């Protein structure tokens, strides 16, 4: 993804800072986001929404520049054609139907009545709301409201779709449908940028993750590759097997293994190692000695662990 | 070294009596109410008139002072007129106190969705309304019937034997008149704040209902050439009821007290209905 052709299809932040008076929004952010699903994670108040507002041109950076496909956010006429924004606020103009909501946005946008009508139906169809299009939004369920916002954000055919907490409050079925829709959009070459607090979900659906803390980007990329770069914490791997003590004994001969602890039930062990690659290679050999391996899994390369290592865990009393 | 591990535990101690639990709300509200200096000042200010009245009664019954002032007879007659003026003045103070405090009692709970927290406990809606009403009841009592009865007692002491037995109905009128007024004020304040869920708006609405209601009533009277228009004027309704209680002659332009009584009862019922509708632990889905 580093060749020049695809480089122009990127969202780029060049040393961007945003201050609201004395309040820090984000600071010294330099990013280059390729197409696909990108997730923003971080504690409340870490600058996720500020980053999204910058990305959609709703606010201008105090310093640096934000460009979508090379178009600067200080060129709103062209910039806004490329981005669609779905905010976290669950509020709508009073008394509107779903159709009117999307249609009026398109008219404001400068479409003719005919164009607007066609585009409205197209985007409403995409989010599967055709039957409910002429019902009042006030009578929609949470999932439907979330989808009509999505229709509004995508109706003018943007290449960048920015969604603030789009999955919040959705039930498991609607969640799955919405995620599937994001995937379709991403496969069509769109940038889908979303924020979420549910890390295991984020880990599973996104092509890359951007982690924010206190207004700074602390990590970006795929969770797994981010994990291997955190060297101060040895990798933890759980092995479930019939003879954990035997495995542990073999592992202790290795220098890179920091710790091997047999589980209380005698059916598995937790290994901490500095060099996961050679551990896995070694495991290939140990497995042949009849130790009865049943399951192997890294214990801390998921989003939650990376989050904990990079941002910290007990921040509740902020 | 001894180690004491303490943390959260389940509770197995005694529980308080359910019947009086509504007073918990009252206690907590009183604790916060006097944090407002404006209210405290106003509350103190509302005792000036009763103090003045007490002084007047004292002077009135003191022969030495009367002779010093070269007055042969009494300065004023302490009777039904005296007490009905007293209650009208103190009633006005009570009204402003109720308009000031009342909306702050319920509106914040509704705006922040606290009702499920109250009602999810062994604590009913009636307990809730009762607890909140007791806040106003206590405060307004200090402004109305408590000083009223004090003045009555003072006058009884000054006037000597007989007066108290001849005028016992006055004490009843002071007490009953105040009670009705307090009931109306607190129900209105709670119902309005439950309705608009915003205490500033509720206070404004409360003032509006009294002042605009009065103006509206006069307008109807003028246009339709009737006297029933002032039925919309709660202050006037109350005045008629007070005059009835204090056996003061009816003005020609007043409507009969029975109508005023009925109207006041209707207002109370309306407030209770509004409270019953608005004070729910959950929103009914469309």
């Amino acid at each position: 993804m580093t060749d020049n052709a695809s480089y122009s299809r990127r969202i780029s932040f060049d040393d961007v800072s945003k201050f609201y008076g004395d309040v820090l929004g984000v600071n010294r952010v330099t990013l280059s986001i390729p197409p696909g699903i990108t997730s923003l994670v971080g504690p409340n108040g870490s600058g996720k929404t500020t980053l999204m507002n910058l990305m959609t041109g709703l606010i201008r950076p105090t310093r640096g520049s934000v460009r979508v496909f090379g178009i600067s956010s200080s060129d709103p006429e062209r910039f806004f054609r490329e981005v669609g924004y779905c905010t976290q606020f669950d509020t709508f103009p009073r008394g509107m139907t779903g159709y009117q909501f999307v249609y009026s946005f398109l008219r404001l946008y400068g479409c003719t009545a005919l164009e607007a009508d066609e585009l409205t139906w197209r985007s409403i169809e995409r989010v599967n709301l055709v039957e409910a299009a002429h019902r009042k939004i006030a009578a929609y369920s949470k999932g439907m409201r979330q989808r009509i916002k999505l229709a509004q954000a995508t109706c003018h055919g943007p290449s960048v779709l920015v969604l603030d907490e789009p999955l919040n409050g959705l039930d498991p079925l609607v969640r799955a449908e919405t995620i599937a829709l994001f995937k379709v959009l991403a496969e069509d070459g769109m940038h889908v940028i979303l924020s979420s607090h549910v890390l295991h979900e984020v880990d599973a659906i996104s092509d890359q993750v951007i982690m924010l803390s206190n207004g700074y980007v602390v990590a970006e990329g795929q969770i797994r590759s981010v994990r291997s770069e955190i060297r101060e914490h040895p990798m933890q791997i759980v092995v479930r097997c019939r003879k954990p003590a035997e495995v542990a004994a073999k592992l202790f001969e290795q220098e890179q293994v920091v710790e091997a602890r047999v589980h209380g039930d005698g059916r598995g062990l937790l290994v901490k190692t500095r060099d996961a690659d050679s551990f896995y290679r070694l495991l290939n050999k140990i497995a042949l000695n009849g130790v009865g391996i049943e399951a192997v899994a890294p214990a801390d390369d998921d989003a939650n662990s990376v989050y904990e290592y990079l941002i910290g865990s007990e921040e509740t009393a902020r | 070294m001894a180690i004491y591990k303490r943390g959260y535990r389940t509770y197995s101690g005694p529980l308080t009596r359910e019947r009086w639990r509504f007073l918990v709300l009252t206690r907590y509200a009183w604790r916060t109410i006097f944090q407002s200096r404006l209210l405290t000042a106003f509350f103190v200010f509302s005792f000036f008139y009763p103090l003045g009245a007490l002084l007047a009664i004292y002077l009135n019954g003191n022969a030495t002072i009367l002779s010093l002032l070269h007055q042969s007879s009494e300065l004023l007659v302490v009777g039904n007129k005296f007490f009905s003026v007293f209650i009208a003045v103190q009633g006005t103070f009570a009204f402003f106190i109720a308009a000031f405090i009342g909306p702050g009692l319920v509106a914040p709970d509704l705006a922040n969705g606290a009702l499920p927290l109250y009602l999810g406990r062994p604590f009913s809606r009636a307990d809730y309304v009762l607890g909140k009403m007791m806040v106003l009841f206590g405060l307004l009592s200090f402004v109305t019937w408590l000083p009223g009865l004090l003045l009555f007692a003072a006058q009884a002491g000054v006037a000597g034997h007989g007066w108290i037995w001849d005028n016992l109905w006055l004490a009843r009128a002071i007490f009953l008149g105040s009670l009705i007024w307090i009931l109306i004020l607190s129900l209105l304040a709670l119902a309005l704040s439950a309705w608009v869920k915003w205490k500033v708006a509720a206070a404004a609405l409360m003032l509006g209902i009294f002042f605009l209601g009065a103006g509206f009533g006069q307008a109807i009277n003028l246009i339709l050439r009737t006297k029933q228009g002032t039925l919309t004027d709660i202050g006037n309704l109350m005045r008629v009821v007070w005059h009835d209680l204090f056996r003061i002659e009816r003005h020609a332009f007043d409507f009969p007290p029975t109508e005023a009584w009925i109207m006041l009862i209707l207002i109370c019922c309306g407030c209770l209905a509004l409270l019953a509708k608005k004070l729910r632990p959950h929103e009914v889905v469309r």
Partner: protein
Amino acid sequence: MTPVIELEGLAVRFGSRDILKGLTCALSGRSIGLLGPNGAGKSTLINTLLGFCKPARGTARVLGFDIRHNLREIRTALGYMPENDAFVSNMTAVSFVRLMGELSGLPPDAALERAHESLFYVGLGEARYRKLGTYSLGMKQLAKLAQAIVHGPQLLILDEPTNGLDPPARLRMLRLVREMRDQQNMRVVLCSHLLRDVEDSCDEVLILKDGQVVHYANLEQERSTNRRFVEMEAYGNENAFESALAALGCHCAAAGGGRFRMVLSDGIEISDIYRVAAEQDVQLRRLNFRRDSLEDIFLRAMNGSLAPQVDTGVEASNGHL
């Protein structure tokens, strides 16, 4: 032992709409997850157990108390954490929790003592003298939890307790739920859209749909493993690995990103897979027998009754063990 919650043909109507259509079941788990899509009747069920909605037909018992006759007893024994924001803005956390304790019947001094303990327990110790109006969303959630446990209830009903929490706050909330279940011996009913949360903290689930019980399950028993179906994640020369596995005679499907699923045919063991891995110099970073996640159970329950089209987008979010 009396069941925590017993439903007997419980039906609830709003106007002309049937919200709950005759639920019958007995829940006796220590922590019960209440699941279902929006509009399935979860909130109504909770509201009915609390006595906020009246049953049209049937009845329910909570800890053995009937909701038609013993509401006071139920509400005394129960702690409730509502879904929506619920607090009193101009009160400090301590006086708020104390007030709630007194309303549950604690004497004032006991309520004060326990208000402090509860706030420390949920992790708001440092912030307990601050006004609730100044709290962040996560702190308000914790304050709601503190008021729900101040009177030491036997049963705790939590409605979407992790909604809007950031990851550490969410993990903390789930840890508290487990702790209260295990150490304080409280029964917990947890209602959530995040299946993972329920999976992490509940041992039983009740799944509702359209006002009916579609599934009731003990999670331990349900999550049966299929010992012939293996999932793994390989790192290294994946293509060579795949073809070598196929040479063993196993049906093997690549799921992208180095992930494979295969059915072990007779005579083939896990150690054979490792031999292939060693030969091809491939690292097996993840390997397990397939077991049903709560998501699988949930989707099966949803499809069982009506079968709407469910997108397979869920599959990818099944990445965890």
